């Protein structure tokens, strides 16, 4: 479990059909937060986007031969920050090696991390005993 004051701990099969569900949960959580009214909808959309991209990445990087694999998502609110952690069990990737997207290049892929970096305050990716984790934080108060 997440060791924070408020948390949601979610486990879904590593299938893209669940992106809608986790995105909707993220939006609903954002709408419950104590933020300015005119910022609430934008926060909700950004959280939906960041989580959708992160879970899609986790599915992409999870073990391809294990159809029973899952993606764990931990959403937490603590001390004015919203923390989102997405765990995967795959080989992982080097976040520091992912360059900022060249917006003048019309590549069909490669904007997921760009979106996450754009809408969240910080992004880290590291290995834990529970698997690889993409950790995103955003100040909400």
């Amino acid at each position, binding site marked *: 479990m997440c060791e924070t004051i408020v948390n949601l701990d979610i486990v879904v099969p590593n299938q*893209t*059909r669940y*992106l*809608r569900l986790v*995105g909707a949960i993220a939006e609903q959580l954002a709408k419950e937060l104590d933020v300015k009214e005119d910022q609430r909808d934008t926060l909700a*959309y950004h959280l*939906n*986007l960041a989580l*959708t*991209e992160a879970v*899609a990445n986790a*599915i992409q990087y999870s073990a391809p031969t294990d159809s029973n694999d899952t993606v764990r998502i931990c959403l937490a609110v603590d001390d004015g920050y919203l923390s989102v952690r997405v765990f995967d069990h795959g080989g992982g990737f080097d976040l520091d090696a992912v360059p900022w*997207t060249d*917006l*003048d290049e*019309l*590549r*069909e*892929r*490669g*904007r*997921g991390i*760009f*979106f996450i970096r*754009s809408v969240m305050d910080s992004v880290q990716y590291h290995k834990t005993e529970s698997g690889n984790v993409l950790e995103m934080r955003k100040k909400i108060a």
Partner: protein
Amino acid sequence: MRVAKEVRDDRTVLSIQEDRIDAHNSGELKDLVLKTLEGGAQGVVIDLARVQFIDSSGLGALLSGYKNASLRSSGFALAGLQPRVRSMFELTRLHRVFDIYPSLQLALSA
């Protein structure tokens, strides 16, 4: 992915009947646009009026359509972008790349 397809004047309109385009259905959109172009469509308009959410894979599918249309000298336009969806194009500056119209009607009359 649910898409309504119809030919209006000399263009093929693909009206997305989903509120989300993400990694779950963007591949279908990419394939559908490609098949439409391969079928000889001289111009394609994607009506996004019902779409409330698009992620990087959705933008990628639309970019694929844009590039495939350009290779065939076919037209490719987007219509009816909702504010959230438009913000994704602005964040990536892709609103400078695509022909974007406020509504399907305006796209067809252009």
